[in-house]
Structures are given as C-alpha cells and as structure tokens.
C-alpha cells in the first residue's frame, strides 16, 4: 500500500501550493508504468484530505502510458 504514502505526498504538495485557500479540485496524472494504482489513490484521498485545505476536493485522475506520477493542476478558491 505505497499509495497511502503517495497520497499523503499529493495532499502535501497541493496544500503547500494552496496556502490557506480551499482546494476544490486536483488533477493527477498516473502513468501506466508508475507502479501506482489510481483506484487506491482515489480511495485514500478523501480520508487523507480530511482536515486539510483539500478536504472535500474532487480528484480527477488521468491515466497515461508513461512512468510518471504527477500532480498536474488544482482549482482553488479565488483570493478574497
């Protein structure tokens, strides 16, 4: 279950970039040869995001045929 560690990292990357703004959506790219299972990341995400700036955010996962695992974009609330 390395997806647990990976998802922690995903949430950390997103929250660091978001500052204290709420994250509504995260887009992730999961390569075929990345050795990560999209379903497991999706499963972990809700739980790990709880209590962070990404709580309740939607996670869109895009499969690619590469070997990378990347957080590509996020949607955050506009600065007040």
């Amino acid at each position, binding site marked *: 279950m390395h997806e647990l560690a990976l998802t922690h990292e995903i949430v950390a990357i997103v929250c660091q*970039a978001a500052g204290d703004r709420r994250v509504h959506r995260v887009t*992730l*790219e999961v390569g075929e040869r*990345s*050795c990560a299972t999209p379903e497991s990341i999706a499963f972990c995400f809700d739980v790990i995001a709880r209590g962070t700036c990404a709580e309740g955010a939607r996670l869109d996962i895009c499969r690619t045929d590469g070997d990378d695992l990347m*957080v590509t*974009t996020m949607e955050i609330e*506009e600065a007040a």
Partner: protein
Amino acid sequence: MMCGHCGCGGPDHEHEHEDGTRHSHSHSHAHGHTHTPTTLVELQTRVLAKNDAIAARNRAWFAGREMLAINLVSSPGAGKTTLLERTIRDLHGQYDIGVLEGDQATSLDRDRVAATGAPVIQVNTGTGCHLEADQVARGLNELRPAPRSILLIENVGNLVCPAMFDLGERAKVVILSVTEGDDKPLKYPHMFRAAPLMLINKIDLLPHVDFDVARVTASARDVNPAIAAIGLSARTGEGMQQWYDWLRREWTVATEAAFA
C-alpha cells in the same frame, strides 16, 4: 477543464472519479457544486519529487565517501537477512560492511546482523511497506558508515512498493527464492525492471520444488533485458562467490567513480 496535459483531452472524455467509476462529462463543476469562483493553478509536480531529491542527496553523500550502497529487495522470507549474515562473515576482513535494516516492526533482523559483528541500525517503518529516502538519510546519521565501506540496505519484505522509492543506492538487487514460484518476474514487473541483478536464492531446495531457473531468468529478461541472474544458496554457500564477484565489481566502480 479537461485533463489536457496527458493527451487524453478533449472536452468529452472519460474521467476516473474518486469512487473508482469512469464516466464522461463535458463541462466542469466541482462535485460538491460550490459556487465559489475558483482559479486554476498549474502544478506539474512529480509526487515523488521530495523523495527523489533526498535520494539524490544520499547518493551524493555516498559518492563523497566513495561508498557502495545496495538496496536489497524481495518478498518476505526470500532470504535477505540470511544472505547478509553470510556475506558479512565471508567477506570479513575484505570490506567494511554496514547494514541498514528496514522492517515494519521488531529488531529481530538487526539482532541477527549484529551477531556477525557488523555495524547495523534498524529502521521501523510502522505501517509503511517500504523504506523511503529520508529514513535512510536519518539512518546514515546514526550509523555513520566509514568511507569506502559497503552499505547493504535490507528493504521491507515486499515485491511491490520498494520498487518506486529511490533511496540513493547504486543498485537494487532483487532476491527471489525458489519456493516462491517462477512466475514472479511477470507478476511483479516493476521490481524486476528496477534491478540490474536478480539473485535466485535457496537453490539447495531445487530438488524439492517446481521451479525452472531457465524460465524465471527468461521471464525476468522479458521485463528487463539487461538483468543479470545468479543462482545461490545463502544456506549452503553454493553460488555465493558469483555474488561476491558482482559486489566487488560494483564496489570498484563506486570507489573509483569519485575520481572520474
């Protein structure tokens, strides 16, 4: 917004959702249907970027000390610790060997290795199913291995997760024992792809099991054409010399590379 970065874009395309279902949708709105105006932020950040940066630092640390670091990976019980014990005893006086033991729990393996007299520290990963680069970095701080020594890292017994995490090692060595079945390289291709060497352990048991060494070597080469294979028994010592020869070559390169 579609995921246009991965080439699967176009406004009407399939998305994978949190619940694991796939469906198409043509417009964007958060599922919680909030009406807060949002801004799109480009991140393009590799999830393992932090681990890889620490691994690169470890690698530089090893290079600066002209050390050889090897990451031993296998499923539980393939014989990593037995191989370590024998290797340390057989090479005693030829190399300084230090060991970093990774297990979810207990210090049993550390105690076994400590009995050989080699410096060893145990890292417990708790729920973690693999070692990560920062655990190795912290371990090095404690172990303080000598320049020109060999660091053998015993990863958590697991043929899946450790493949993803670079620790800064010169090479991963995957150990497969003959009691595990000869279909493993095809079932766990990531690990066999990540290792330049496969040790086939417990060959003393070959007469008792259905395990085809030629077939396992061929299937390992299907996923990684460059992989070398050595059959050995950490119990009887058969074949161990070839492993020591491989280690010596890697050590020579690692210790000379510093001046290259």
